[in-house]
């Protein structure tokens, strides 16, 4: 490699990536009120990571967020989501009946809020984990992409 001729790219990316992550979390937690939700947040989060990988190299990214972690994250996400359903069931409700989480009567909203937030976390985990895993698997097949290849 002859010098770093991606300087501008790197600097801008360095500024952008934290913003993207923050935006992801905004989308995630503001989903109750406005457009967006965990799916979109998960994608945005994964995109942040992918941007990181494209600009700073796959190896560095993989070292920061290892593949086993993303893979497990996705599985854990599914388990969180499905687990909320089981939790409701253990509380005597139907599957995924958030109302039953805290044993509220109709009109009580704590269970709904808690349930929705937890499952959204599950979705976030599952989506960002799975998408990053997919990217890792695809990009990891070839050695680092050189400039001439683009």
């Amino acid at each position: 490699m002859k010098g770093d001729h991606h300087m501008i790219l790197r600097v801008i990316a360095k500024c952008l990536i934290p913003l993207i992550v923050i935006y992801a979390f905004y989308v995630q937690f503001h989903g109750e009120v406005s457009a967006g939700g965990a799916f979109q947040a998960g994608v945005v989060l994964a995109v942040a990571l992918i941007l990181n990988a494209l600009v700073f190299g796959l190896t560095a990214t993989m070292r920061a967020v290892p593949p086993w972690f993303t893979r497990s994250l996705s599985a854990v996400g599914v388990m969180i989501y499905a687990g909320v359903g089981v939790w409701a069931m253990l509380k005597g409700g139907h599957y995924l009946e958030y109302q039953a989480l805290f044993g509220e009567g109709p009109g009580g909203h704590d269970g709904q809020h808690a349930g929705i937030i937890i499952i959204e976390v599950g979705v976030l985990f599952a989506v960002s984990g799975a998408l990053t895993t997919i990217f890792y698997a695809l990009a990891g097949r070839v050695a680092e992409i050189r400039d001439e290849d683009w």
Partner: protein
Amino acid sequence: MTDAVLGGTGTALINILLLAILFVVAIAIARLRSLFAIVMLSGVYSLVSAAWYILVDAVDVGFTEAAVGAGMSTAVLLAAMLLTARTAKPEKPFSRIGPFIVCAAAGIMLLYATIDLPPLGDPASPANSGVGLTYLQVNWYDTGVPNVVTSVLASYRGFDTLGETAVVFTAGLAVVLLLGFGERSLADTLRRAPKSGTRPGTVHKDGDGT
């Protein structure tokens, strides 16, 4: 489409313009041989359709389309493209007759079906007066979530969302099963050029995750 909903000829023109762009891009994707151009054009397609979704008041769908279609898919497609050749092989003439007939038939049927579809945004249409209306009516009392889309996705039809989460998980699983974990190449890279400060050992240990 009633003007009352879409608000004047201006919007209608933009509608037509966007759909025309979509049509042209789709034709171009079908005709092109260069995979890179195809990937980029499909990103364009997603972006334009996201814009159009927002125009027809489906903000959530538009947002998702922009994030997944234009962002994620393009990145993944590019990564996949690296594994293969850059241009598609030219196909034999007439080899696409079958798919063309299928497409034409499906298109004709779709057109035929639209005759009896209710107009877009018609408040009396079944889609707006059926269970959709009920959601709007009972949502606040039931869930206390201001955004009905969220409460439908996460609560009323939360099981579908669980299923979709599982679909995403399956997709990740599928790619890993087929292509490996991507860790081998990482390990290779590390072995070939051990830079200062790297800890190859951890990676190897991690790579044996399952």
